């Protein structure tokens, strides 16, 4: 049963077609407008706040992303909230939509492998997200230049570029999850609901649950409680559990990248801070090193989720 030719023949065709479908779909347009408007609002709030309060900051430009002004959350919070929504919106009916329209067997009748179909759909979704995120990033940089009037330094550009990259990776995680469920469930509505459920769970419920579960796994030491401190073992367990959620990973990476004074993402003992110059910014390479495990976690989990979806899709009956 050896296959003839590359598994990826026809990948380009599928990708371009999917891309053009995405970019012209009403769904995408609505999502885009939502993201752009919300991001602009957050940016406006950030600029107002910066003009009001910040006197001097070597990383003024990065504050555009992280500063919030009540009642709006910061640009980064909006992104971490809306990017999964966009990815799920693009991916929840990728495979089962074709199946329900009875076009899947027609496509596969062409000289296109199932591999290429799934890869093409994933890549098209990712490229669509990347295009919109890059556009958004450029809008932020441009408006920042206009509204603040301070040109960003090389390191700031580097850091915000890494932030863009990580955001695309983050979108990829949710896209693969949506693809997985679109393979698993025949009904797009079920797939959408389940994906959104998983997103809600991982984004809002899991961080709270992680604390409770950690207290069961590693009960707090009463000696620490008496001092009003968190037990180190409990804190570590809670963090490990919370990191199962991609949104936690993304939030940690963003903190490390956009706040150069971040030295560590885990709990730190006071002895490790002895003699440390607090508030001194880390070089960009060190911030990358701090954020790297989380980034690796996101990339690897995206690949693994994709592999699971791929394996299931390969073994599926595609004839309607």
């Amino acid at each position, binding site marked *: 049963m050896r296959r003839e030719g590359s598994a990826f023949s026809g990948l380009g065709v599928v990708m371009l077609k999917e891309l053009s479908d995405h970019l012209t779909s009403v769904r995408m347009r609505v999502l885009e407008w939502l993201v752009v408007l919300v991001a602009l609002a957050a940016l406006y709030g950030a600029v107002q706040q910066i003009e009001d309060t910040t006197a001097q900051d070597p990383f003024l430009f990065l504050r555009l992303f992280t500063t919030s002004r009540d009642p709006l959350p910061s640009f980064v919070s909006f992104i971490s909230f809306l990017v999964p929504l966009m990815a799920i919106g693009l991916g929840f009916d990728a495979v089962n939509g074709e199946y329900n329209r009875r076009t899947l067997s027609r496509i596969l009748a062409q000289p296109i492998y199932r591999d290429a179909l799934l890869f093409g759909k994933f890549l098209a979704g990712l490229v669509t997200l990347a295009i919109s995120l890059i556009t958004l990033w450029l809008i932020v940089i441009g408006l920042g230049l206009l509204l603040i009037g301070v040109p960003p330094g090389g390191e700031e550009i580097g850091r915000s570029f890494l932030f863009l990259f990580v955001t695309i990776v983050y979108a990829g995680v949710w896209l693969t999850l949506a693809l997985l469920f679109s393979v698993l469930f025949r009904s797009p509505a079920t797939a959408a609901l389940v994906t959104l459920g998983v997103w809600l769970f991982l984004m809002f419920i899991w961080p709270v649950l992680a604390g409770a579960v950690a207290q069961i796994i590693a009960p707090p030491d009463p000696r620490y409680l008496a001092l009003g401190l968190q037990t180190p073992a409990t804190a570590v367990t809670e963090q490990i559990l919370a990191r199962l959620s991609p949104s936690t990973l993304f939030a940690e990476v963003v903190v490390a990248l956009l706040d150069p004074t971040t030295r560590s993402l885990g709990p730190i003992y006071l002895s490790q801070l002895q*003699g440390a*110059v607090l508030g*001194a910014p*880390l070089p960009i390479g060190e911030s990358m090193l701090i954020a790297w*495990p989380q980034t690796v976690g996101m990339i690897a989990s995206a*690949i693994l989720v994709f592999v699971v979806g*791929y394996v299931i899709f390969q073994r599926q009956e595609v004839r309607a």
Partner: protein
Amino acid sequence: MRYRFVAALAAIAALLAPAARADQAPKGVKGLYLLSDYPAVTLRPGETSSVSLRLQNYDMAPERLGLAVSGVPSGWKVTLMGGGQPVAAAMPATNSSVSLDLHLDVPKSAAIGTRTFTVTASDNSTKLELPIAVTLAKELPAKLTVTPQLPELRGNLRASFSYTLDIKNDSGKKLIVGLAAQTPQNFDASFTQQYDSQELNAVPIDAGQTKDVKLKVTPPNTASAGRYKVVARVSAEGASATADLTLDITGQPRLDVSGREGLVSTRAVAGKQTSVPVVITNTGTAPADDVELDGSAPSGWKISFNPKAIDRIAPNAHKEVQALITPTDKAIAGDYVTTIRASSRGESASTTFRVTVTTSTLWGIAGVGIIGVALLVMVGAVARFGRR
């Protein structure tokens, strides 16, 4: 005080014995006298002066005495004053005296030399004469002496050098004595009174009196070790005196710790030893011996030096050592402060180095490996499950 008291007692005893005899007339002295403390004085032409006289009556009945001055050189004005006005007669009571002032007004043109004139007090029976000699000199020599109590002082640069000078006015009148000190360049000298911080330029000294004045000399920071001469000069109205003073500045090593080319920051990897060049400079004026190096850093860090100590650093010389800094394994990335100290017998200096700790990139490579494994899984899945 006490002596006076004893003298008074003796006087009273003396009085009581011969049944309240009159005043303190010395025994065996009786009569009228015309007296002066200084019947010969020295003056400058054009000067006005006065000679005090006294008409004393011992054990005689009061008597009116007419006063006159004779033999006055032409052009001089000589007036006898009593009680503030010119007088022509005096009448001392028994055992009492009358004070008189002989007012002298010497013209500018008067010739140098000694003139004598006579003051006469006379009545019908008595005639008292007192010759007064006035010597005219071109200038009355003002004379000052200055004596340092401790003329040689020794100390290091940070010490203050205070000399006490006794200034004596040996001339016959009050002088305003100007004070000055001649010091090596950049030395600072100031005169004060003994227990006063007010600086002085001049001090008034009464005739024949001595005053203590303090001269404080502050050497500049840059002065090298050695002996320095300071000349204290006092002067008034053409008279002057000097005192030679000596400052013996002993050298003092002064250390300065810095990085090579002034760079006091370095990078280090957590858990790995890194070496930082440390330059120790002796900016003082004496050699620094047995310079020991020491460092303090966050807990768990190790700091050692190669070499551990320096035998000797000459003044204005520097030596370089390597500080070997090992951050703890558990150090998180970022900047830390370490202090490096050099000490040599009480003289010490320190400076802070900023160490930027970077963490090992090993875990970064491990992350790449994890992604590689995930990609391998995918390739395996494609190979295993790929359909024709």
